[in-house]
């Protein structure tokens, strides 16, 4: 008789049932979140597939009854961050701390009339980590505390990073809106032949 008995079939069934109940309901949301991050369907499918594979492999460590959605987003964040690091250095880019502090202190008012395409362009123009935290807060509607868990940073870091991300987005939106306005005026002054 072997000393190493295989795991009983019912134990495997139970963990698969748990995974069905806890994780699979979030599959579509995670896939869409992956698409928001990558903007390319094939890459998003690859990312979402990897997230669920990693989630399944580490499901034994997941604490049943806790926030599985936030746990899956944490895996999504980790996998995406690992992949991003392979492409470009993970930095704050052009948005230096000092510059942002100055921006926050003397910020112009937020435009009241903004177009979807202007906001879409602004989202693409800010740094990936700023975009990520904005999406977690404003689109996925996680609380600061949940975001801190997902990103594994202190809640104070979440607040300051979000504040900088929002200031950066507003700055980009202002720039885009102003450029659109100038282009519109120039076209109007040019008249028709």
């Amino acid at each position, binding site marked *: 008789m072997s000393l190493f008995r295989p795991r009983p079939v019912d134990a495997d069934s139970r963990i698969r049932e748990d995974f069905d109940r806890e994780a699979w309901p979030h599959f579509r949301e995670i896939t869409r979140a992956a698409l928001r991050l990558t903007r390319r369907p094939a890459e998003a499918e690859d990312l979402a597939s990897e997230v669920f594979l990693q989630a399944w492999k580490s499901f034994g460590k997941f*604490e049943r*009854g806790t926030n599985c959605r936030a746990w899956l987003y944490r895996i999504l964040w980790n996998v995406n961050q690992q992949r991003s690091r392979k492409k470009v250095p993970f930095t704050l880019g052009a948005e230096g701390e000092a510059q942002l502090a100055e921006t926050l202190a003397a910020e112009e*008012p*937020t435009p009241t009339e*903004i177009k*979807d395409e202007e*906001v879409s362009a602004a989202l693409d123009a800010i740094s990936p980590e700023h975009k990520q935290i904005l999406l977690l807060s404003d689109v996925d509607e996680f609380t600061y505390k949940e975001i801190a868990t997902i990103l594994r940073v202190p809640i104070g870091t979440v607040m300051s990073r979000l504040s900088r991300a929002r200031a950066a987005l507003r700055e980009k939106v202002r720039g885009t809106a102003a450029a659109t306005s100038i282009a519109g005026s120039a076209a109007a002054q040019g008249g028709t032949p």
Partner: protein
Amino acid sequence: MNAALNVRDYGCAKVRRRLDSYLAGELSVDLSHEILEHLDRCPGCRAELAARENLRTVVRRVASAVPEPREGFEAEVRARLARTPAPSTGAVTSLLLAASLVAAAGAGTLFLLSRTAGSPTTNMAAARDAKAFLFAALNHKGCTLRFDMWSKAPSVSAAEIGPKLDAELKAAAVQAADRLPGYEAVTAHECSHGGERIFHIIYRRSGSTSKDDLVSVVATRPGSTLASGVKLAGLVSGGHRDGLSVVGTSAEDGRLVLLVTSGTDDEAMRLGTSVLPALATAFVAR
């Protein structure tokens, strides 16, 4: 257009630094009160708040405009996982869960408990419900910090409660003021959550000056994002935070009405039964 929005003074700059957290509902009740008071008298900051709210709406719309996953993709991933051996679990997981619950209890973290199985008036709260219950508990804690001031104020009659409220809320407050047996209404006012106004009545046990004997009833406004997606059928027991018990119900128009007490679950349910259905009805009737 933008000239009127310029920062006027230090108060404006301070408020604008916190406007986003205010919109996200992440400020303490006291800070939210300060922001609300400033907004009441500052049209520039009100306009900035509206502009930032609009920007968030557009961000949400733009970022949500991604297609659903390709048909068959989920099945492919399921098949891949089916070929992957199940992870180890069992006693370790149970121990981790037990440890996390002990840690959560020690830290005073909100966690949800279903009430007695089979009770027709209760169910397990979902995540969105949890957010509403958590808000009610925090709102109660934040506002009752000012109890010292209230304990010195004379009791008010039902007709006198909430003098600054608009007609609808005033009428609801009057209806609710005498509904809690053994309690008297101390004040009714509006608080804020994520830029939305919340209706709040505070009761105290008759003759008591202890904070532990205060009870809050909190109600959302129509269209509140806090109430979005929350369906509390009948009276629903919420959760526990720092020794507080919360029960809630939904009005027919979607508004949530929640009661918070330092008492036991049974006490919360008894008080909730006394006042919440009537208050929910009072809103719908108008």
